[in-house]
């Protein structure tokens, strides 16, 4: 876990993950971007990827399944959900499955920045 600032970005919209990757670069955070649940599970490396931004609504495997499998691989993985419409039910469910927080679509970059600071910089520091 040397490079704790490496993040996995999972969203079925190519451009979204591209923007997010670009944005993370501002804070010197490297990332791996994938556009499906299968890819996410294929590339996920528990050694390097402490943080995952995960879209819930994806075409083949949905976010919940990916979340559960990620947790199976690495119970300590910190997953932040990217939610299109954050209804209470799904958020509660995601939280129960181990997600630490969520950001909403359309992504507000200042909100995204706050979450980055809160979990990746401060959270890591406090740990």
């Amino acid at each position, binding site marked *: 876990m040397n490079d704790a600032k490496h993040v996995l970005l999972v969203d079925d919209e190519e451009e*979204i993950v591209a923007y997010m990757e670009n944005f993370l670069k501002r804070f010197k955070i490297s990332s791996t971007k994938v556009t499906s649940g299968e890819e996410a599970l294929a590339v996920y490396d528990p050694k390097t990827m402490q943080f995952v931004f995960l879209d819930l*609504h994806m075409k083949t495997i949905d976010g919940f399944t990916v979340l559960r499998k990620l947790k199976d691989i690495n119970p300590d993985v910190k997953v932040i959900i990217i939610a299109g419409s954050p209804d209470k039910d799904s958020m509660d469910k995601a939280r129960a499955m181990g997600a630490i927080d969520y950001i909403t*679509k*359309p992504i507000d*970059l*200042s909100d995204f920045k706050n979450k980055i600071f809160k979990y990746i910089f401060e959270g890591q520091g406090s740990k």
Partner: protein
Amino acid sequence: MSYFAIESFVLGFACAILTVIIFYNRTRFLHTVWALFNISVGFWAFGALIVTLCKDPYSALMTWRITEIGVAFLAVFFFHVTCELCELYPKKLLTAAYAQAIVFSILSLTSNNFFSGTKIVYGSIYYAVPGLYFYAFFVIWMALVGLSQYFLFTTYIKSQGFQQKQLLYFIAATVAGFSGGATNFFPHFGLKIVYPIGNTTIILYCVIVTYAILKYHLLDLKVAVTRVGIFLTLYALVLGIPFYVGFKTDSWIWSTTFAVCLATLGPLIYRSLRLKAEDLLLSEQRRYQKILIQAASGMTKEHNLERLLELIVRIVKKAVKMEYAAIFLEDNGIEAYRLRAVRSDTPLEGEIIFKYSDPLIQFMKIHKEPFLFEEIPPEIRKSMNFPLNISLFVPSFYDDSSIGFMMLGNKLNKKAYSIDDINVFKILSRQTSMSIENCIFVEEFKKAQERVFAAEKLASIGGLAEGVAHQINNRLNHFSMVSGELKFEVDSFLESHANLVEQNPELKKTFEYFIKISESLISNVKRTDGIVKGILNYAKVEAKETLYSNFFLQEVIDLSLDLLRIKHGIQDFPLELDKQSSDLIFGVKSQIMESVYNLLDNAYEATLDKINILTSEEISRYIPKINVSVSQKPERCVIQFSDNGIGIKQADQHKIFAPFFTTKASSKSGAGIGMYVVKRMVEENHKGKIWFESEYGKGTTVTVELPKKYSAGGI
């Protein structure tokens, strides 16, 4: 006892019964005079009976003198009845006729010149011997009867159609009766012909004519007369021929043989003659009865209630040709029978209903069979306030429960409804009730189908909207991130090149502008996102949201207003929220949201539509207002939506909650399921209530009542 005595007794008895019946059933002055006529005939008959029983000339003479009063008056009453029947009113002549009857009655009682004494006739009867006055009396009596027949005949010539036929039979019957009756005069003058057989015709004449006139409506005079006429002629032959044969040959074998043969053939001949005669007489009636029966059997094919009712009244009116035909159907909602279809020569104004409590309805429920105006008890007749004459009333029952009735006016040709007519209407009413039930069933079935369809439609709209919303959301993500990027880019540039920017006001201004537009972009993206989410929530109505919760109406209204502003392309929605108490409500948020959205949308469109009916001056003064008020009651929460829009026309009010009903002309309006869905959400899902009050041109207030507690059987 002699034949004469028996005959007199039967006649007197028959007259007594008839008098009672006539008097009890009388509806016209004509009937009163008829009753008097019967009294006088009966009076004479009983007198004649007593005469036959008298054992001495003196008591016989006295009886004759009293009895003759009846004879004097029966001619006058007959004359009077004829005048009434022919609608002639020769006042002086009538007065004179009554006067002479009185004079001769007095003379009969007092003068020996009327009856001078008695003589034995037919072996045992003391028959009065006429005096001079009696000849005068006889002449006047014959003249009165003759004049009556003349009146009848001249009226008969002038009359037309059914009336003419009716008069013809009346003439035939009276001619027969009086020719038989007049034979009673013969023994006075020493003539021994026909008498006492002649008297038999009086009884029959009396029975036929009086019955026919009384039961004018129930029994066609011509049919009654024809049937009885055929019957009498035939049986006169059946009995007369053997009698005559027996009399001539003095052989009982021959007469018995004839009697047996004729008595066997009699009923068969009677039947075939009767049917032939009636076919001739009733051809017109049979024609429309055939049409009605055909119509009745074809009715079950019609499944649209409105069209069915229209069809019935049209056929009935056309076939029977009456003043009007109207159908009333039960309406449970208003506890009354409502006029649903009418064909009338005189137009009927406004909504016509008969409450369950109406005496006529009560009478119908007891009676159950079709009835004539004459059969309605007088006290009910008085309380009726239907604008047209009710001639025939035909109730429709289905499985013992009344579903409605048909009301018919008088026939245009003034004919009465016959028993056959009534039987046809009975068949028609049974068929009608089945067809109506059938229609109601089909319509209910259709409604059920429509509900399923509406639900499916909503679900498909929901699915579509979700897909579209997802796509839009993805686009919004790009906008959001790009504008976020822009802002961050500018911010970081300003941070790293603070001095440079400070020194260059132009540059500073440009960067500040960049920040401003990026922020504006972000906020617009957020608002658009809110709208998309709103659409998504709206479409999700039928989705499985089982969660009841407490939430604020304000919240739901704000969400609806976002959508409505977009829908109508307006900045300000003319709404006032009037919170008398807390606006906390309990329910399924998405469903309440959709209901509120629909109600506010309707209210707003009503204010737009109102402008169309205002003059330009009024438009300048018109301020659209939509008011929502919330009040908390112990068990429920009451929300009222009032607008000063166009309102709902009376005729449309009952259709408001029907699926696929819309008064909105604009292409923006939906399929007309809004209010239907709202009603189902409020009443079926929330166990609440929804109703409205509206006045066209003034506005509408819709009230929604929601229970505060969750009740079983929710969504």
